[in-house]
């Protein structure tokens, strides 16, 4: 609902001069009208996507993610508000200008959408057909794209002769054929196994770093966001519940949905499974509490726990601990039981909070 740009986020931006957004959603709403009435798919969305960044959109099924990216290249039109791409208000473009803009935006779909009757080469050639290029230039472009996506030698195969991951690579090559300034990925990896997903995401990130293409990445997996995105928007039932840099959102998620997403990627999320499974490792006695800690400076963890134990006379038993790197910066966390008098536990936790550790007491089920 609100745009939770924490102050720390602004200081994280590397560029000091104000940047011009390449894609801007300005109070965008989208309502579908069908036979049996209206359906509000998106409500009052505002966001800036900056050139060269990888912008993630995450949400549950039906949240409106696909609708939102499809507004960017005009497959859908906003009912209210304005989508501005490279300074152009989409609602004010005529058909020809719209087509011209679309040639500069590549799109990758979950289902690849390769043309089944065309070979890999012809699929990649498709967006190049209207370009003023010589035959050799075209062929060279296809060859270099095939090499980029690691499919050299398969150019004469038909899509049905390729694996899902290979098909998605062809789709990436095709989306990049026109040297787009924007690459839209709608669940590009959802149908793939984890190893293939990682290789596709790495490929997209490499391309982003090398060409500066702005990437908008729709997903329902937080691991995808963690792996490649710089910024993220969390969508729930057509509204933005959280938005900011991926790091800031991992460190300090405000919305319950965001926390749920984060827990799916973190080892600490496993505590919920253990609780649900009534695992004997986490039977909690009278004088015990189950806590989850999260800290963003790796050096603080161990000393803090030791300090706390010594100073407040509490016992800490670590059940799970985790440290991971997001955008090259560490985030650590642990789940532990803490034992002592209620008073001592409270002061110990206060001590942690003062040290910028996020503390959560997990209520027992």
């Amino acid at each position: 609902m609100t745009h939770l740009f924490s102050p720390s986020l602004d200081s994280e931006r590397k560029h000091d001069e104000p940047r011009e957004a390449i894609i801007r959603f300005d109070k965008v709403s989208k309502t579908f009208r069908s036979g049996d009435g209206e359906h509000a798919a998106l409500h009052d969305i505002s966001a800036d996507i900056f050139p060269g960044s990888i912008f993630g959109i995450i949400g549950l099924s039906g949240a409106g993610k696909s609708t939102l990216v499809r507004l960017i290249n005009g497959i859908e039109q906003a009912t209210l508000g304005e989508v501005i791409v490279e300074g152009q208000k989409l609602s004010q473009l005529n058909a020809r200008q719209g087509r011209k803009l679309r040639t500069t935006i590549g799109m990758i779909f979950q289902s690849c959408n390769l043309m089944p009757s065309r070979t890999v080469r012809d699929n990649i050639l498709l967006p190049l057909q209207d370009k003023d290029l010589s035959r050799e230039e075209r062929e060279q472009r296809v060859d270099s794209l095939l090499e980029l996506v690691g499919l050299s030698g398969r150019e004469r195969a038909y899509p049905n002769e390729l694996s899902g991951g290979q098909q998605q690579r062809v789709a990436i090559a095709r989306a990049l054929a026109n040297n787009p300034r924007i690459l839209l990925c709608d669940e590009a990896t959802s149908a793939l196994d984890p190893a293939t997903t990682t290789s596709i995401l790495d490929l997209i990130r490499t391309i982003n770093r090398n060409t500066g293409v702005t990437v908008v990445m729709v997903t329902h997996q937080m691991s995808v966001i963690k792996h490649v995105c710089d910024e993220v928007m969390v969508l729930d039932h057509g509204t933005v519940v959280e938005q900011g840099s991926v790091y800031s959102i991992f460190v300090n998620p405000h919305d319950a949905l965001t926390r749920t997403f984060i827990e799916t990627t973190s080892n600490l999320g496993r505590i919920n499974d253990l609780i649900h499974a009534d695992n004997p490792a986490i039977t909690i006695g009278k004088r015990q509490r189950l806590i989850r800690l999260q800290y963003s400076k790796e050096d603080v963890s161990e000393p803090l726990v030791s300090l706390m134990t010594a100073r407040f006379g509490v016992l800490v038993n670590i059940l799970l601990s985790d440290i991971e790197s997001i955008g090259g910066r560490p985030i650590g966390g642990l789940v532990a039981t803490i034992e002592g008098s209620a008073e001592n536990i409270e002061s110990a936790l206060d001590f942690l909070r003062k040290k910028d550790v996020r503390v959560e007491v997990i209520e027992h089920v």
Partner: protein
Amino acid sequence: MFDIVARWFPHVVEYRGEFISSIWETAVMVGVSGAISLVSSLILGVLLVTTPKGGLLAAPLCNRVLSYAINVLRSVPFIILAAALVPLTRALTGAALGLRGAIFPLVVGITPFFARQVEAALMTIPSNLIETAYSMGFTPWKIIRRVYLREGIPALAKGTTITMVSLIGLSAISGSLGSGGLGDFAIRYGYQRFMFDATLASVIVLLCMVGFVEFVGKIVVDATTRQ
């Protein structure tokens, strides 16, 4: 060999000149009206698929009118349609009989059916392929050419085969209106003059033609299907 043929098909042998030219006439009738109908059916079929609400060339009213007209034409039995078209045929081609007179009613008779076959074939193309082409900034015409007509080739080949078989049937019916061809031959000799072997020989040749069309159709479908 010739003896056996002469024993079983005495009248066909007797009128072999006419028999052979009627085979040729049927081939020309089916070929020419099929080719003309193919072009008009592709246009109509594309319009049927692209003009509904939300389509590439959305024009819902046009779509409804077209669809209704096709249904009306399809519901008229061919023999009646051909008879009703005689004045128009004569005005257009200068003849109501013979090859020249036969082609126009055949085109009118088969096109509504063919257009529906084309429509059904083009509907098999997943909408996300159309969307993909749209997202590349293609014009509607380019989407039609590069996706509908190109990706639809296997399904179009199937529909064309079915249509050609029906067209061979229609060409034989139009024989009863004096169009020439194998239908005409079978009626004039086999039916009116009780030369049963003339009918039998016509049937065999028509079956061979159908078989040939289906054979070619299958080759095209098999060569282009990539699923």
